[in-house]
């Protein structure tokens, strides 16, 4: 009977929830993976980003460091080190996956739920591309490879 309450009463038949879209109710494959990347990115950005912003972008304008500390020679010498290359790669990739995941959920919450497939493709795709570009410019570019 339409509008009948589903609260318990003696002799009530078991009621099933209305069928939702199959996608919303089948075990998610993408979600655990992007959540894991988001978590990793969260740790990386929380621990590493503040000190990097402070010294890379604020120390010179605020007069704490002389300008040549982050000048071309200094930075090029810094980036020759594999540890530094990995550091910046992790920072860039981590922040991209973290930020894109949060942006996707913000947009879903704002009402764009129906566009989720498209949103995931664009946002996580951007994170993947950004990470690959970062991999090239941090690690690959310093390795003796046949291609430029």
């Amino acid at each position, binding site marked *: 009977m339409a509008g009948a*309450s*589903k*609260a318990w009463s003696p002799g009530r038949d*078991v*009621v*099933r*929830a*209305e069928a*939702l879209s199959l*996608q*919303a*109710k*089948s*075990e*998610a*494959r993408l*979600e*655990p*993976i992007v*959540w*894991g990347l988001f978590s990793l990115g969260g740790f990386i950005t929380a621990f590493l980003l503040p000190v990097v912003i402070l010294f890379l972008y604020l120390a010179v304008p605020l007069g704490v460091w002389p300008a040549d500390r982050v000048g071309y020679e200094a930075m090029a010498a810094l980036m020759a080190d594999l540890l530094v290359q990995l550091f910046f790669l992790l920072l860039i990739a981590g922040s991209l996956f973290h930020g894109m995941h949060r942006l996707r*959920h913000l947009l879903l*919450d704002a*009402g764009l*739920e129906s566009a*989720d497939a498209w949103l995931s493709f664009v946002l996580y795709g951007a994170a993947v591309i950004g990470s690959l570009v970062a991999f090239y410019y941090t690690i690959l570019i310093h390795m003796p490879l046949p291609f430029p």
Partner: protein
Amino acid sequence: MAAKQVVFRVQRYRPDKRPRPYYQDYRIRYTDDMVVLDGLNVIKDAVDPTLTFRWSCRMGICGSCGANINGKPRLTCGTFIKDVVGPQVIVDPMPNFPILKDLVVDFDDFLDKLEETRPYLVRSKPKPLSDGEYRQTPAEVEAYRQYSMCINCMLCYAACPVYGASGHFLGPAALALAYRYIRDSRDRGGEERLARLSTKSGIWECTFVGECSVVCPKAVDPAGAIQNLKVLASMRTMRKLLMPKAVSR
């Protein structure tokens, strides 16, 4: 005790009289030992018998009397008037639910979602009665005790902005209840439960706002339960990827 006065501004919804909700003010006397539910009952008994609201045990165990008091989801039986006098006390029905009448909301959706998480012990074969009871050590009980304290008051659903925006989020109480069974040593349905929760309308819709745990009158901490479920579900996904045959679907 000296009697003071307070104005209860209560949201009414009388579809037989007016098509939209409206506020009605009631001035009553109150004492320091009265809770908001007592105020509502004074109004119903002595001022306006048409005022409609749910309540039962008046001691915070039945979960019937949830409402928005000055904009916050609270149990009316657990909120002293003296603590919320502002000087008004604004009483609204719990948000995120359709309103049936006055402060009474329709929570059929909540009941459906509770059912979906299979909130009962799942075993491949139940023990025969002759084998006696299922035994648990105090430590095993402690593992899920906190999550078993839920009184189904729905304040967490009222506080959850994701539930408010989404048509199909399972919600804090249903997920905390599922976690309660996963943590119960007598339950054998853990993997299957996890598979049913690890969906886009299940744990992955939660963005850890955390307000559900703030408003819970029983300190169940559904937000913590959901985050734990996310970690467990992620571990399950890793196992599926690395050892696909070993994991049940």
